[in-house]
């Protein structure tokens, strides 16, 4: 029996499984590189159709804006007057949420470029439920 004849033909199903696993292994680095290149190219992060929240313009002076970027909320603590509007702006490349630890405030998933606003009467601690290491606080005066 020749060497070639003795070699079994690979099962195409398992070949497909191996290719799928390799594809999943490569997908992560590809996505990371794509995001890095997009960041360096200065691709705008505001998604088409994103609507500024009420109070995001001149009115925001009475409230404030929290920016989400680099998997962090900035500022870490925002102090605003009671009854003012806070705008949360996802300037990141990843989706985030604004979720109050005590409940009551939950933005749902905010894709990159999307905004969420809330009128605050009490301070609250919040975090991103997708990236729970992202934490911050809204403090209220008056």
């Amino acid at each position, binding site marked *: 029996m020749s060497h070639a004849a003795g070699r079994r033909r*690979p*099962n195409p199903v*398992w*070949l497909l*499984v*191996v*290719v799928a*696993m*390799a594809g*999943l*292994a*490569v*997908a*992560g*680095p590809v*996505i*990371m590189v*794509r*995001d*890095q290149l997009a960041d360096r190219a200065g691709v705008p992060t505001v998604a088409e159709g994103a609507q500024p929240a009420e109070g995001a313009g001149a009115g925001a002076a009475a409230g404030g804006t929290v920016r989400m970027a*680099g*998997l962090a909320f900035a500022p870490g603590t925002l102090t605003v007057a009671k009854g003012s509007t806070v705008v949360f702006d996802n300037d*990141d*490349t*990843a*989706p985030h949420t604004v979720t109050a630890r005590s409940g009551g405030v*939950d933005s*749902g*998933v905010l*894709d990159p470029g999307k905004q969420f606003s809330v009128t605050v009467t009490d301070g609250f601690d919040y*975090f991103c*439920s*997708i*990236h*729970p*290491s992202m*934490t911050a606080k809204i403090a209220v005066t008056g």
Partner: protein
Amino acid sequence: MDIVELLNDLTGGQLLLWKVLLTSVIFACAGLQVMLAARFYEASTVPPISTGAASRTHRLNGKLTVTLAVVVGLSCLIGPAGPTSPTRVLLHSVFGSLVFALLAAKYTALKLRPAWGRYLPWIGSGLFLTFAAIWATTVADYVTAR
């Protein structure tokens, strides 16, 4: 509606919690895989079952583990994947990719290149350690952040 939003709705707004739970189950299954492999290689007497039973359970548990890993991995790739900071996120992405590279190597050794079978214990150990690293860079962070 995008896919992440759909998954979030399907899990009642608890997508991350589900991923955390599944990642913990996967990690536990990976630990069991190592124990079962040690049993059917006759390197251990734990668990106290026959080597044949250990082998069959290893295969069944392996299929379950890989299926869950693919589900969780895909939900990461179509959702939050991309950022390279902070370091925890970068490491999580690296280990998440490595686990699928190791699975590709494992299936190659098992099904396509039987001569590579001698590397299976190393690949299996690597898989367990990588699953441990994935667990540590997500679930541990999730729990401490709460």
